[in-house]
């Protein structure tokens, strides 16, 4: 839905490249200036390797079929005849003409939010000018499809919404009767805030006497004061504390903890450290895919 009115001398689609096939004689292709390409993509919220246009010497003139966010790096640009800044995110309305002019160096890059969804060949959307693989260079009359930016909404629907919060046990589980904690149902009390969530439920007794010397605290730490009513520390906790911490909420589940409302019920399940790291890494990957579309070809 981006119509090519004039193609420019050589404008091609380039994504991160066609990697892993060099042993078959397949060139990687991709942008000649990976930095400018990545910056143009970042300006519109795309992953660095999203499919964008590589412009040679003089750019194309395009018309948008719908409202888009667009950025041009390394070339002059005008929208409906008025000069617009390059190196900035531009919000272009449906029907407007984008004329990309002279490049500063040999090449410039134009990225749109979502990335161009031209066909994928051998895992990449890049035009290979040496071998001919991939899409042909832009020609007048071409209509380029752009990915729709609905993936942030999809991610929002996929946000973890659970009444079970996973906790990495320790470091002071040997100070309290941990068995009473995991699996029990707790209610969030009204005096909870962004410093900590105060939990009502079974009292967690100490299993040893004495006072714990003050030590550093982390967000997600579940500390047990003398009255046995656990406190789940949130982002604004104090740097140190003297109550034993029986476990720490897995970082992947901290968002759930931060959304606990007074009156809400919550239960806790143990998770080992390695599984917690994997859960966090998976979540980060999903975030990147959702909010920076164009990352994975296809």
């Amino acid at each position: 839905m981006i119509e090519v009115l004039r193609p420019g001398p050589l404008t091609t689609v380039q994504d991160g490249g066609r990697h892993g096939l060099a042993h078959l004689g397949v060139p990687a292709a991709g942008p000649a200036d990976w930095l400018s390409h990545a910056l143009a993509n970042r300006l519109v919220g795309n992953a660095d390797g999203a499919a964008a246009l590589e412009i040679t010497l003089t750019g194309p003139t395009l018309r948008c079929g719908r409202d888009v966010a667009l950025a041009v790096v390394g070339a002059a640009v005008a929208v409906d005849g008025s000069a617009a800044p390059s190196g900035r995110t531009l919000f272009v309305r449906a029907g407007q003409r984008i004329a990309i002019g002279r490049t500063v160096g040999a090449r410039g890059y134009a990225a749109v939010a979502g990335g161009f969804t031209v066909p994928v060949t051998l895992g990449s959307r890049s035009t290979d000018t040496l071998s001919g693989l991939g899409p042909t260079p832009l020609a007048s009359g071409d209509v380029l499809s752009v990915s729709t930016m609905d993936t942030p909404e999809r991610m929002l629907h996929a946000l973890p919404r659970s009444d079970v919060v996973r906790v990495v046990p320790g470091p002071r589980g040997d100070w309290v009767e941990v068995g009473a904690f995991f699996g029990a149902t707790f209610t969030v009390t009204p005096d909870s805030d962004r410093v900590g969530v105060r939990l009502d439920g079974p009292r967690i007794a100490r299993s040893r006497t004495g006072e714990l010397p003050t030590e550093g605290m982390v967000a997600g730490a579940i500390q047990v004061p003398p009255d046995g009513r656990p406190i789940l520390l949130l982002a604004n906790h104090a740097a140190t504390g003297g109550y034993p911490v029986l476990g720490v909420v897995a970082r992947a589940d901290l968002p759930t903890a931060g959304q606990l409302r007074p009156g809400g019920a919550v239960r806790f399940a143990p998770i080992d450290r390695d599984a917690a790291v994997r859960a966090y890494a998976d979540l980060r990957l999903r975030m990147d895919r959702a909010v920076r579309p164009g990352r994975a070809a296809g």
Partner: protein
Amino acid sequence: MRFLDVGEAGLLAETASQDAAHRVWRAIRNAQIPGVVDAVAGARTVLVTFDPLYDVRQRVRDVAVRAPAVESDSGRDIDIPVTYDGPDLDASAIQTGLSTVEVAHRHSERTYNVAFLGFSPGFAYLTGIDAALRLPRRETPRTAVPAGSVAIAGEYTAVYPQRTPGGWHVIGHTDLAVFDPDRDPPALLAPGDRVRFVPR
């Protein structure tokens, strides 16, 4: 030295003494390990936090166990001017069985060590208090202790840097800004420094 995992983004080093905690804390800060977010000294511990996607625990352990056994003196000497006019001075005198003059004298004649900071920005726990001045915390904490309040509780004395709730016995005040976010460094005191209270 024992090391305990704290969630997937923290490692707690347990030390034999407060001094050892300081040495390990300094060694970790000086090592500037990539991926490490913060190092917090406690009374007998150092908590190191890091990005969980980069497992730097082994590097942290290596630096911690190689911290010097004895440290060349790297703390500073800080004087804090104080006026002994706190709302709990009389009550402290009664509870310790000393006169108010004696409480003030015993407090100001000692040199204190900064054990660690916590509770609030710039709040330094100072050790070395005269045994005769050891009092448990107040039964009922105050909802607001003025900034600059000089207080005692248990084995510690401290200056409240901001107006906050507090359960310690306030025996005096200082006009010195113990924490100023526009200053570099913002906190007057750091672990390992030595402090004297100088009566006005």
